[in-house]
């Protein structure tokens, strides 16, 4: 079975997991949550196996490289990193409420990778500019960072919904009761942004080292580079704004959404501006 066939299957496993997380939130029964977690873990194992298989297949083809080299591979790695971080958070915090917000992100990424006709799922050989270990580290750190920001985004949505739910007073159903306390969400959101910020800093730095070796210039202000800097600054603003009075809570949640929008534009939107990094 090919890795892309497995990944198409994993897409549906994540969809199922999301639906179960949703049932848990609506019904308020932990049975559904436990089922959702197990399905998510199985999906993650299959997902990991597919990544390893793809890695191995590239060697069988004689063009061996880590599966981090084109748009398709970045999408599936992004989704994998989202699941990895989510499962760690679920295990550490013993709370499943984030699942219903995060799993759809991974599902959409994989669905896009499998369905979109513009995305080539073939294993391609590396052109000379991509033949560098710095590329691997660059993609790895950037996408782990993006995944952290995806967590912050999901937490931001959860935080804002919690605010809305409280306005609903007593009628607020199981859904809102199952969302953790606002300050716990906020702390986790902050931690996710911190982790994402460190990883994105590393990602930009390793990308610069690679560019310095490949093109003789660590920074060329091409649109993708500029947008990664913009994203980095958005999160730097967020970290500083916390120290300004009155900026905690809801505003942080909103900034997590803005930051993630910037991440998505850096990742996808920039393809519509012309760039060295353009995937299409």
């Amino acid at each position, binding site marked *: 079975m090919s890795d892309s066939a497995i990944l198409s299957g994993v897409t549906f496993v994540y969809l199922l997991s999301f639906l179960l997380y949703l049932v848990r939130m609506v019904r308020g029964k932990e049975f559904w949550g436990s089922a959702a977690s197990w399905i998510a873990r199985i999906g993650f194992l299959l997902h990991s196996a597919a990544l390893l298989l793809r890695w191995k297949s590239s060697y069988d083809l004689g*063009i061996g490289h880590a599966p981090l080299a084109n748009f398709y591979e970045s999408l599936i790695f992004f989704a994998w990193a989202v699941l990895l971080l989510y499962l760690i958070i679920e295990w550490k915090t013993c709370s499943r409420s984030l699942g219903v917000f995060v799993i759809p992100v991974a599902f959409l990424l994989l669905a896009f990778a499998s369905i979109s006709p513009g995305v080539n799922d073939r294993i*391609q*050989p590396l*052109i*000379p*500019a991509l*033949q*560098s270990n710095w590329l691997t580290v660059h993609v790895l750190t950037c996408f782990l960072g993006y995944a952290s920001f995806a967590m912050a985004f999901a937490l931001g949505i959860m935080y804002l919904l919690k605010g809305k739910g409280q306005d609903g007073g007593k009628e607020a159903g199981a859904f809102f009761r199952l969302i953790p306390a606002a300050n716990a969400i906020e*702390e986790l959101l902050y931690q996710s942004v*911190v*982790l994402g*910020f*460190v990883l994105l*800093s*590393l990602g930009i*730095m390793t990308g*610069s080292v*690679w560019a*310095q*070796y*490949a*093109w*003789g*210039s*660590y*920074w060329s*202000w091409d*649109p993708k580079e*500029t*947008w990664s*800097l*913009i994203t980095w*600054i*958005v999160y*730097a*603003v967020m970290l*500083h*704004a916390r*120290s*300004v009075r009155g900026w905690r809570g809801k505003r942080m949640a909103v900034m997590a959404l803005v930051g993630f929008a910037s991440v998505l534009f850096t990742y996808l939107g*920039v393809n519509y*501006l012309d760039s060295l990094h353009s995937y299409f």
Partner: protein
Amino acid sequence: MASKYTGLREFLTSIRLAVALLSLIALGAVLGTVIPQQVEGETFAARLHPALLALFKALQLFDVYHSTWFVLLLLLLPVNLIACSLDRFPAAWRQFRGGAAPDGTERLADLPPERIVAADRPPAEEASRLEALLRKRCGRVQKVETPQGFVLAGGKGAFSRFGVFVVHLGVLLLIAGGLAGAIFGVRGYVEIAEGDTANTMQFRGGKGAETLPFAIRCDHFTVEYYENGAPKVFRSDLTFIQDGKTVRQGALLVNHPIAFGGLRFYQASYGLLPGGRLNLSYVRGDGKANERDVAVGDRFALPGGEGEVEVLRAENDLMRMGPAVKLSVTSTRGNVQVWVFQNIERIKEANPGVLAQVPLMNPGLFAPYLFSMQKKGEGFYTVLQAARDPGVPLVAGGASLLIVGLMITFFFSHRRFRIVLEEEKGKSRIGLTGSSNRDPVGLENEMNQLLAEIGKAEGHS
């Protein structure tokens, strides 16, 4: 007077200014990528409403990165950063040195009951045990005697207070390095045909050229492909020549630059020479034949000093008669142009009298010289990017400091613990308090652990 300076100082040291500056810089960068800039901006501008165009022009939105306001923001950022850091450093230093020492007024009654345990021995004995316990965790421990017993204080991770300063120093170095590169850096291209030697570096953007104090010969250029047609290897085999001597030889590949003579060379691109590489030979009367490899654009003087030859064009197959090269010979007699065919003998056989009819095809047109040519396979030229950037060490140092600073800031925290011992009927009651500059969850976990240790040893007595 004083209040005016205080106001300025407050402005420059405020984190609000930092937030505003960073936000505006991000906004400027967004505009710079979304609005077509400089030359491209002109066509875009033609499509705008006049009022909008005037606004865009006033805000210099067609060249954001060089606009007055953007440059001002970039200059203000380091000022803000330095002012802010200087302003806050003394406080961080005090915190690092330990902060407020216990003053003996700490009371168990102020602590939550879940942070208090009982012990069998009197405070004086328990205190020495707990002092050792705390020292294992914190290094230095302060001990203060109170009317009721003792207070022990210790802290760990105090260095993490400096993380933020390391991050900000890193940012400053990055800015300084970028600036140094922009001002003192040199970036250009060296184009060399396979087999040729070059010593001119063309600056980027057609801004002149520089003659290098050494020459580079491209001995060979290779391009290899994968089965699917994608390129696999671009490689220039180079020889660096100084004062006529070979100083260094090496293969230049993408991602494997070569440093020489204060410059770094990168494999930037390549191309096929028009007409490929050729070997031109020319004989004067019945003298000795001269030979040289040439490419389009080359010029050389004839050995007898009769004139100068320039290679104008080269064709792989001119008018179905095979490879040919067009030469222009300039001399005191004026300018003569001639096509030299590789297969001239065969052409003459097939079309007797052709040279008389078409003098342009006569290789002996410029008497007393006779030219002939031989094509030598496909010829490549390689384009090396050459760069000298004195900012790179600063940028590399700044980036490293930034990363190290972030790790220190985020993955460590300054935790301080106090243990309060009070005597009660010859035994002790022991309480624990703690504080931290970040990571409340981590602090909570460590306090629980510490409290368990405080309580555990009590079992042995």
